[in-house]
């Protein structure tokens, strides 16, 4: 079983990202489970959402403490929350930041930084980075196929909004693929 933990702030769409990643993984024939850390949702408050992937039925219901993958939607969280806690050796951490990393990540963990905010602003006109980071996640981990992600986005968003979100995800996907 592989586990993903998404850190974000209320309003950034972390829960939606978890759900859509699970939907895309399921399309790829994987048993996926997505759920939020059940906080009281407020805009700006630190939130978490989780996804599990396995080739058999997932029974475990506790939160994710030792993730294989971490997505950090907002790098300002790093000073307040230990977002890298418990990440497995060999794991992959994706951080949305426009800066060079000024934080330490655990040894043996791969760090990918991406300026998802600029990509989202350009594609959507809004600094909502969840769909952008889903593209980066697909490219970095291979847990979901881009085509499946595209389908999940088409199913969740309508018309122009779907097109724009897919464009944001594709830009991030290509950026991470190119950097690899």
């Amino acid at each position, binding site marked *: 079983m592989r586990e993903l933990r998404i850190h974000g702030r209320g309003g950034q769409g972390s829960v939606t990202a*978890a*759900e859509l990643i*699970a*939907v895309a993984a*399921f399309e790829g024939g994987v*048993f*996926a*489970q*997505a*759920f*939020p850390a*059940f906080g*009281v949702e407020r805009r700006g408050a630190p939130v978490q959402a989780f996804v599990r992937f396995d080739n058999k039925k*997932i*029974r*475990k*219901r*506790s*939160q994710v*403490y030792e993730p294989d993958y971490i997505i950090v939607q907002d790098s300002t969280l790093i000073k307040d929350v230990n977002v890298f806690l418990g990440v497995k050796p060999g794991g992959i951490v994706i951080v949305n930041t426009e800066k060079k990393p000024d934080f330490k990540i655990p040894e043996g963990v791969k760090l990918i930084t991406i300026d998802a905010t600029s990509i989202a602003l350009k594609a959507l006109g809004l600094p909502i980075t969840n769909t952008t980071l889903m593209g980066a996640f697909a490219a970095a981990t291979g847990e979901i196929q881009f085509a499946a992600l595209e389908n999940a986005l088409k199913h969740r968003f309508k018309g122009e909004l779907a097109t724009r979100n897919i464009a944001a995800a594709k830009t991030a996907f290509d950026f991470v693929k190119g950097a690899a």
Partner: protein
Amino acid sequence: MMEITEGSHAVAEAVRLCRPQVVSAYPITPQTHIVEALADFVANGKLDAEYINVENEFSALSACVGASAAGSRTYSATTSQGLALMFEVCFNAAGMRLPIVMSIANRALGAPLSIWNDMQDSISLRDAGWLQFYAEDNQEATDLHYIAYRVSEDRKVLLPSFVCFDGFILSHTYEPVDMLTQEDVDKYLPKFNPPERLDAADPVSFGMYATPEYYLEFRYEHDKALKDAREVIAKAGKEFAALFGRDYSAMVEGYKLEDAETVIVAMGSICGTIKDSIDEMRAEGKKVGLLRIRVFRPFPSEDITKFIKSATHVKRIAVLDKNISLGAKGATAIEVKDALYGSTVPVWNYILGLGGRDVRKKDIKEIVVLAEKGQGDQFYGLRKEVL
């Protein structure tokens, strides 16, 4: 067909397929997504039902009582404080023998206020005379609605049912669920046809008062109907299995009990985590098994006795309760001890996971160690400063 969806939406879809004629509910976290989805279905013509908007939960269930007495298949959903507000109506619905089905997205009761999961809400209504089903995952949370209508409306039973599933932990989780089709459900669930109904042409009264000469007999018959539901559940579960392959005929589920020295007893979504930890403990040579209670009312005393009382390999039982009858023990532990009266196997109770406290595999393993040491009847996982 397998699809991946949120627990609440899977439940709402299952309810739609049951063709309720009257839905009345009041939104409350974490039940809200279910009734939102049902309101959408009614507004968009996907469900031919009367959706009665009400000002609170007392009215929601009262509307269901009237509609059910008039011969309609009715549905509601609630949790926590909402269920507490329904207390009086719950007893009336059951006493009038009205087969209402109500989903409970289990949540703690205040004070202090908590929106998070435990089972104090439905467990506190255990004496209300409803059937109580508890789901481990979202597949079961959906399927148990078909079973609940089938059993509740059976003329041997004619009692309402709670279908309980853990708030947030299941209600807000996306996972694959095999959804039945309308054709499937129509095959399994016949039209509601009660023996008595409110009818202006042939007037009857429901819930009239019973004098001391008769009240005792009403209670006897109510209790008997609830106990007779055991056979009806077995039959309804077998027929469901024959049609759709998933078997809910047993009120309990045994997991690796054949040679278990430590038996964990629990209900609900925590049982998935328990099964994973049992596999790990067994790999380390510890013989641990799980007895999961799927139906809490009627209580499956005989099934528990059958599994445990005659088994000489069972050395200890650890009952995990996400509820507490304050001043006594967890409700499951009290009932398990009653079922096992006369047995010399120690039964230890652990109160855990209240108000949304996360329960991990390591917690289950620690509890097994405590039970092995003969340390039990305690809250598990307390912060040190209260001790």
